[in-house]
């Protein structure tokens, strides 16, 4: 029997457990990419069930199908144009009304669908009891209760999905608005007769009334009179209600969602606040909240660095043992040193940085995100981030930056506007990542004293603040304020966390590794062909005359572009036999300052290119080079005054 193919899409609000269901359904058969030409993520997976091969597409978590964000637009178009066989709408039972608002919009798209009423356990604890049958009847759509984190209801959900597809769906109710709106929807629908369009006519009529730009643009090509009629009617509704027409329609849609929710759910609020509630109050408390945040962040960093340092050493020892093998195979000639010193060492560098620091970092990050704690941190930090024109959410990529700037830059995607993404990415590249921490601790911390290393850290914060403010002033556009849901705390799903980590890691490897290897090869080649010393001499006006550093730092700083801590490791090697002690304390501080700021590493640059485009990435890179050189020179002169 040949397997029949089906496509099922998962749609729903953010934080409703959609990705947990997705993971349950597809296991490891997943593929994460981007929507064609968009920076919106597309997760896809497959499973076999009852003789079907089912493709599951996990749509981004969104609150509406308007055109507020790219995610919303992509989701809407996907459902309308590619017409999956079924949409599973994942609904958070504990926030039914707001979730149904989205369900109603899916229904308006006239797509075959079923509802997964998820997190019923959390709802129950909050005293919300939902009558599934009643809800089914009110929506005219099958509803299955699930607790995805425990795998409850998933197979019933799948069975219901197949049944719905096989039977074909006819029972769906229509969302009815007030008479004044319905009349006008009818009028517009009339003008749309005979037009072939991927959205249903009624949907188009509603969206035209809402002033949806994308649909108005498309329809203007097919039926310009419809757009004009809609404009007129929009004005009429606005006069009638004294509010924007889109607000009127959203309002009425919410009215329907509220009515359905009230009829289907029974509310018995618990007498005592739930454990989640108490945890929320504690973690957002004006004093305790900050204490908890700071101590948990410190603990996390400490744990990650300890683990990272240990594993990193272990791995590099292990991998460096392979050198004789390479020598045996390729010899010690030009080919041999290019293979080992170029390709292999680049690879080792990548492995020893990526695996030990980034993996635990991602795991912790997704734990924090999945549990809901990240949104509380954003809440607490919103005000501080505002000083540099960003809102609380930007604190998350910045925090990531302390581990590695690459995922941090990629993480800037969570910012809503282009301006904020640019600003956040720029600020993030100034955050001292694990590699820069190695330099700070390994040079200043070790030879001058840990307190001086701390001073550099604090100084870094100051630079972030100052340059962030500067960029905030220079970049055109208005800062936007925070609008964020703080969903209830919940137990993170380990499998989902690990999977997220794995896919992020794969993304990082894909971006960073080729560059690290190529870069390492190029520099090794330059070394083999004796080009390094001339380059170092070429740089000496900057390194020696202006910064007061030894000539060879020119070379090490070039290597540092690949990986920041390489600049230190190499410096130690080149200064042999005295080692790093050959530097004066002032030189150490100057070198560390320059290494901290002088350029984002090659992998970060590629992440910047990917997120912001080449022009902005180049600008940021050049700016930071200039900034570090100026800063280093000034620091040298100031510090010499005091010593």
């Amino acid at each position: 029997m040949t397997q029949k193919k089906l496509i099922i899409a998962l749609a729903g609000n953010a934080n409703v457990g959609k990705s947990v269901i997705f993971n349950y359904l597809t296991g490891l058969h997943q593929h994460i990419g981007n929507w064609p030409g968009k920076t919106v993520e597309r997760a896809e997976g497959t499973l076999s069930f009852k003789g079907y091969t089912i493709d599951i597409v996990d749509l981004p978590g969104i609150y509406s199908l308007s055109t507020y964000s790219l995610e919303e637009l992509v989701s809407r178009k996907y459902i309308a144009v590619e017409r999956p066989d079924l949409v599973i709408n994942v609904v958070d039972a504990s926030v039914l009304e707001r979730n149904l608002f989205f369900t109603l919009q899916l229904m308006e798209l006239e797509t075959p669908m079923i509802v997964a009423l998820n997190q019923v356990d959390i709802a129950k604890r909050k005293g919300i009891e939902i009558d599934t049958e009643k809800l089914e009847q009110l929506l005219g759509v099958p509803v299955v209760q699930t607790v995805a984190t425990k795998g409850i209801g998933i197979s019933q959900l799948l069975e219901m999905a197949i049944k719905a597809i096989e039977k074909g769906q006819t029972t769906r109710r229509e969302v009815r608005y007030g008479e004044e709106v319905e009349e006008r929807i009818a009028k517009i629908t009339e003008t749309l007769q005979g037009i072939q369009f991927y959205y249903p006519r009624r949907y188009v009529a509603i969206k035209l009334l809402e002033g949806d730009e994308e649909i108005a643009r498309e329809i203007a090509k097919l039926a310009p009179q419809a757009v004009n009629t809609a404009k007129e009617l929009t004005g009429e509704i606005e006069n009638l209600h004294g509010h924007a027409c889109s607000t009127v329609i959203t309002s009425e849609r919410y009215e329907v969602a509220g009515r359905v929710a009230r009829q289907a759910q029974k509310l018995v609020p618990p007498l005592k606040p739930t454990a989640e509630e108490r945890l929320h109050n504690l973690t957002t408390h004006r004093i305790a909240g900050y204490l908890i945040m700071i101590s948990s962040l410190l603990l996390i960093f400490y744990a990650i660095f300890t683990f990272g340092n240990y594993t990193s050493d272990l791995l590099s020892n292990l991998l460096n043992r392979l050198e004789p093998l390479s020598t045996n195979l390729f010899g010690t000639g030009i080919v041999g040193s290019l293979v080992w010193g170029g390709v292999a060492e680049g690879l080792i560098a990548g492995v020893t940085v990526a695996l030990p620091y980034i993996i635990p970092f991602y795991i912790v990050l997704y734990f924090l995100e999945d549990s809901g704690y990240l949104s509380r941190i954003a809440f607490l930090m919103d005000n501080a981030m505002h000083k540099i024109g960003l809102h609380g959410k930007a604190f998350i990529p910045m925090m990531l930056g302390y581990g590695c700037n690459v995922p941090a830059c990629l993480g800037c995607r969570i910012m809503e506007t282009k301006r904020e993404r640019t600003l956040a990415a720029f600020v993030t590249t100034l955050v001292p990542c694990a590699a820069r921490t190695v330099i700070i601790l390994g040079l200043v911390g070790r030879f001058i004293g840990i307190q001086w290393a701390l001073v550099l850290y604090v100084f870094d914060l100051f630079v972030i603040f100052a340059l962030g403010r500067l960029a905030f002033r220079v970049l055109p556009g208005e800062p936007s304020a925070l609008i964020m849901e703080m969903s209830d705390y919940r137990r993170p799903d380990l499998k989902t966390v690990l999977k997220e980590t794995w896919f992020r890691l794969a993304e990082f490897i894909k971006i960073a590794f080729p560059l690290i290897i190529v870069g390492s090869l190029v520099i090794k080649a330059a070394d083999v062909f004796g080009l390094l010393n001339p380059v170092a001499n070429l740089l000496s006006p900057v390194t020696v005359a202006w910064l007061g550093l030894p000539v060879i730092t020119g070379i090490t700083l070039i290597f540092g572009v690949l990986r920041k801590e390489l600049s230190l490791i190499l410096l130690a090697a080149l200064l042999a036999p005295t080692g790093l002690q050959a530097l004066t304390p002032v030189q150490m501080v100057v070198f560390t300052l320059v290494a901290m700021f002088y350029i984002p590493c090659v992998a970060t640059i590629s992440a910047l290119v990917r997120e912001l485009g080449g022009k902005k990435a180049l600008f940021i890179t050049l700016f930071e080079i200039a900034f570090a050189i100026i800063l280093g020179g000034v620091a040298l002169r100031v510090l010499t005054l005091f010593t």
Partner: protein
Amino acid sequence: MSSKGVEDYLKALYILSRNGEPISTTEIAEHFKIAPASVTEMLKKLAKKGYVKYSPYHGAHLTSKGFQVAEKIARKHRLLERFLHDVLRIREDKVHSEACEMEHALSDEAEESLCRFLKHPDLCPDDSKIIPACDLPFSTCEECVELHKKDFEESGRRQQIPVSISQLKKGERGKVSFIRGEHKVLQRLSDMGLTPGTEVTVVKSAPFHGPLEILVRGSRLALGRGMTEIIFVEAEKE
């Protein structure tokens, strides 16, 4: 001379006058920041129309006809200041110049409505000057309210002045009245459930003027200060 000019002059004399003593030309000149010579000329014109009594070297003072006009305009000015400040949330130091422009265009009827809408304020916001009483045939403000209550409800105007949600204190509730902002922000906020008429509860605010935590339709939202200042609610009374 325009009516605006006349009104401005009379208002100045009204403000500067003390116990009916004549006000000197130099004082008026300083007030308007113009030359004393042009003040003299103006005063002569106003005297001709019967608004002021002017005698050279002594200065000028308002006649009862002038006083009436001046008081009316001062009242309009100060009511407008209250409106601009309390309802539109325009900064205190900006309301004066704004009101100066608007006072001349405000009809007596609108002035009356404004007074009721603002619940008969006594003082103006920027310098706490007393707002002169109206010249309507009511002995008390309650009488005026009673008489107009019916039209008031029928016309569906708000009984209460909407305030931005950032004005609500911890634990206070309100109903969304309107949201000021560009289309996208409006869309986003209403998509999150903040539509007109929706009840919102302020749970708490983060320290140092941080974001506000609110409950809306059973969900918990964090709204940055920029957002809370554009959402206007009718506060619910305890």
